[in-house]
Each structure stands twice: as structure tokens, then as C-alpha cells.
């Protein structure tokens, strides 16, 4: 589902943030991405979501070469990828409900369907009682959970998460990770960047380790 072939990324006026990274995640895989601060984890996820373009090499998502996705097609492409951002990125002037509903409104669903799906997603992250509040009145962990609800509300085939549990206590972190596993079990391909090595170890999923932009280790070893 997610195929990286010798991908490099150099930001203008900066050294290489990713260099020559290759790996393959199959449909329905779940994997962790880890590495030191500044290793290139967010960069890798941004390349998949077409927030940045590769400098060299190519990426195929669901068989589609990302080099072929023109600017006009990007929105439609992104609707198939749920992204959880490191800095949640909620709309501060809309309620929790409206924030989570946004992907559905963009997709053009009708009102009743939207309500049903948003409620279901909020229920999963334990925030149904806060649906009418504005994001600024939530704790950081609650904001992060709203971001998770928004990413999964339209059941995208690919789910990317950048440090989804950085602001959550260990108990809640584990719960959220379990939730990702449930998604994975219904066929969603999941890739999670995380620092929480303890948790990753316990979860026993495929793990990619980045170091200074290079893929320096994989557990378990890939046969490719």
C-alpha cells in the first residue's frame, strides 16, 4: 500500500532531512516509525500526505505514483488519508463537533449521516460530553483526541499519525493505540510516528527506525 523507493528529501537551504529511504507497507499493515528528534519522521509522513514533494526517488500509495498527482488532484487524494498531526491543527473558532464533522462536510455527506458518524467517532475517543465546546477550552490531551476523531471519522484506507500520544498519559496512550489496532484489524493501513519506545515494544508491530534521515533499522527484518 505504501511503497518508498530510494526516497530523499532536501529542504531548501538545509541538509538532507531524508536520504535514500526504501520500505514497503502492505495493505492492512500497521507500523511504527521512530527515531531521535529531527530524524525525519514528520518529513516522511508529510511526503505521503503530499504536504512536501520528494527530491529524489518515488512513492507509490495504493499503486498510484505520487509524482503523478497534480496540484488539482491533491484534495481528492488527501480525502483517502487520515492524518493526525503532532500539533492537532483544530479550527479554533468551531466547536469540537464541527471540527470532527469537517472531513464529512467536505465530502458532501448529508446532515443526518454526518451527525451519526461524528458522534460515533467522538464516542471512541471518550469526548462525547465535550462536543459543543471550543478547542481552546480543552486540555491538550483532549485536543489531541479530537484530532484523532477527525482523522478517523470518514474511515480512510490509510491512517497516518504523528506522535498521537505525545500529550497523553500512559493509560490513555495505550487505549488510543488499541484503537488504532482496531482500525487496522478492519483493513486500514496504519503508520504511526512515536517516541514512546516502551509502548512500541509492547505493541509488537513492525517498526522502522530513522536516524539522521536514514532508515537505520527495521524490526522485524523485511523480506521485501
Amino acid at each position: 500500500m505504501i511503497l518508498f523507493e530510494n526516497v530523499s528529501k532536501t529542504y531548501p537551504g538545509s541538509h538532507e532531512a531524508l536520504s535514500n529511504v526504501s520500505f514497503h507497507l502492505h495493505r492492512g499493515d500497521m507500523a511504527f516509525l521512530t527515531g531521535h528528534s529531527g530524524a525525519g519522521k514528520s518529513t516522511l509522513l508529510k511526503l505521503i500526505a503530499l504536504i512536501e514533494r520528494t527530491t529524489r526517488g518515488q512513492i507509490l500509495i495504493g499503486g498510484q505514483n505520487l509524482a503523478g498527482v497534480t496540484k488539482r488532484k491533491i484534495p481528492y487524494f488527501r480525502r483517502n488519508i487520515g492524518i493526525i498531526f503532532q500539533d492537532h491543527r483544530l479550527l479554533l473558532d468551531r466547536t469540537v463537533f464541527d471540527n470532527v464533522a469537517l472531513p464529512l462536510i467536505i465530502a458532501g455527506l448529508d446532515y443526518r449521516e454526518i451527525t451519526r458518524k461524528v458522534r460515533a467517532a467522538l464516542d471512541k475517543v471518550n469526548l462525547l460530553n465535550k462536543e459543543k465546546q471550543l478547542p481552546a477550552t480543552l486540555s491538550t490531551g483532549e485536543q489531541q483526541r479530537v484530532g484523532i476523531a477527525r482523522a478517523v471519522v470518514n474511515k480512510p484506507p490509510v491512517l497516518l499519525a504523528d506522535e498521537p500520544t505525545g500529550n497523553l498519559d500512559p493509560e490513555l496512550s495505550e487505549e488510543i493505540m488499541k484503537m488504532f489496532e482496531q482500525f487496522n484489524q478492519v483493513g486500514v493501513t496504519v503508520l504511526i510516528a512515536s517516541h514512546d519506545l516502551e509502548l512500541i515494544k509492547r505493541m509488537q508491530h513492525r517498526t522502522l527506525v530513522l536516524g539522521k534521515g536514514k532508515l537505520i533499522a527495521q524490526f522485524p527484518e523485511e523480506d521485501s
Partner: protein
Amino acid sequence: MRRGRTKKPEHASRKMQNTSSRRPGLIALIKNYFLRHMQVMFYSIGQLSRTPFSSLMTSAVIGIALALPSAFFTLLDNVQTLSLGWDGNAQISLFMKYNVSNSDAQKLATKLRMRQEVKLTRFISREQALEEFRTHSGFGDVLDVLEKNPLPAVIVVVPATTLDTPDQIETLLTSLKNIPEVDLAQLDLEWVKRLHALLETAQRGITILAVLLGLSVLLVVGNTIRLGIENRRDEIVITKLIGATNRFIRRPFLYTGIWYGLIGGLLAWSAVFTTMMLLKAPVNRLADLYYSQFTLSLPGLENALLLVFSGALLGLAGSWIAVGRHLQDIEPT
């Protein structure tokens, strides 16, 4: 357009083998389209009314920018009726021969009025001529010295408004000259020239103003929307990340522009109306002094509709330009 929009996501989702590919009918699509527009429309009203003071301020800026040209055009309109109705166009003075009696001259005047090229005639008897001369020239008392009225009767001929080139008026003049009773036919060319010069100046001035002001309306709307877009940069970035098309993002801004323009148009209309009301009294006093029937005409309902409509249109145009320019620049990082 509409088809393209719905086709692409399906195309993309087929590649990703998305399971939820409903295929709604055309009517449902159109209904959905309008419904969504209505939603955005009401959403944008809601947003504006949440910050009533700043919305009103923005509208007021647009309103003033709209009010000025419209006030000027109303005034120009008034001046044009004024210069027509008040002093007439060019006029031809026919001096009768000295031996033509008042009654013959009057008959001639009536006859001339029948002609197609003539709009109206005004008969001035020899006695009236003397009286007018006495009151207006300042030489009144001098005339008492004379034992006989030295002035002939005069017929003032106002050419029909259909004669608008100097040539046509020249032809009329020649034909009038050839009337036996007429001693002298004099065209008040000086006046025509002056009027033209005056109107030319006014028109040039107002054209420059209109250009400046039109520019300022566009600048104000564009600038306001631009700053509005800057203000909602985060929102735009986030919705782009979630998969919103430019069209989706643009829509609320366009509606906001329309609302600003609409309200601005209303404010402009009330400003123009108030200005005209305040000017009415002194203008009427002025007209009275000139023995003129002229009264300042107030802008009517169709004027209000025009202002509101053009306000909305300008608001839409300004936001369209601003959104087009700036939406491209705002990309998530």
C-alpha cells in the same frame, strides 16, 4: 464543472479501492449543490454577525467608497437637467424690422413655433424689450431721455433638441434670416461654447474621480478580503490538509465579500440620501434666486437597488480577486 467535481473523488477512491462509493443521481447532486451553497451563505452571515462591530466597520469602509461616486453621479445628473431645463440649449434671437408691429411679430412667433426644428418661441414686445433693458442694463434712466422707443420686438427661438450639431442649427439660422420681417438673426453661440466648456470640465473632473473611486472600492474590498484570508490562514491550511478543494475554501470568502458589499451598498445609499436631503434646502434657495423651477431630485428606490446590487457585485469581484491571488500562496507545511 459540477460533474467534474464529483467524478474526481470517485476516480481517486477507485484507485484506493475505497469501499464507500455511493453514486447519487443527478437531481440529488444538484439539490445537494444548492443546499451546500445555502449552508455556506447562512454560515457566512452567522460569522459576520458574531463580530458585528468589525463587520459593520468593514461594510462602512466599502459603503463610503461606494457612496462617493454615486453621490457625484447623482449631482452630475442634477446638474445636467439643470443646464438643460434652466437655460435651454442654444437660442436664436430674431430682431424684427423696426416697422413690424407687435401683433405681426406675435403672429410670426406663433407660426414659427409650428415648425419641426423649433422647440419653443418666446415673444418679447417692443415695450417688454424696453422694460427688460431698463431693469437689466443699468442704463434705465438714460432711456427716459429718448422720446421714442428705439427697440424693436424680438422673438427668441429655441431650436428643437433633435438639432444637436452646429450644422443643423446653422441651417435653421439661415432659414430664419430669410424671413422678410426679420431684420437680424443672432445665434447665442457664446453661451453654447461656455456650456460645453463647463460641462467638459465637470465631466473630466468627475471621470477622474469615478476612476479613483472605483479603484478605491476594489482596493478596499480586495484589501479587506485579503486581510480576512490572512486572518484565516490556519483555517485554510487545515481544511486543505483534510482534503478541501480550492472551490470549497473559496466559497465562504465569496459569500462574505457579497455580504460586505450588500451592506456597504445599503450604507452608501443612506449616505447619498442623507447628503441630498441636506443639500436640498440651499440648492432650492439658489434656484429661487435664479427664478428657476429646478429642485434637487433625490435618489429613488431603483437607485438603492442599483447601489446594493453593484455593491454585492463589487464585493464578489474584490473577494474573487483576493482569494484567487492568495489561496495559491497558502499551502500547508
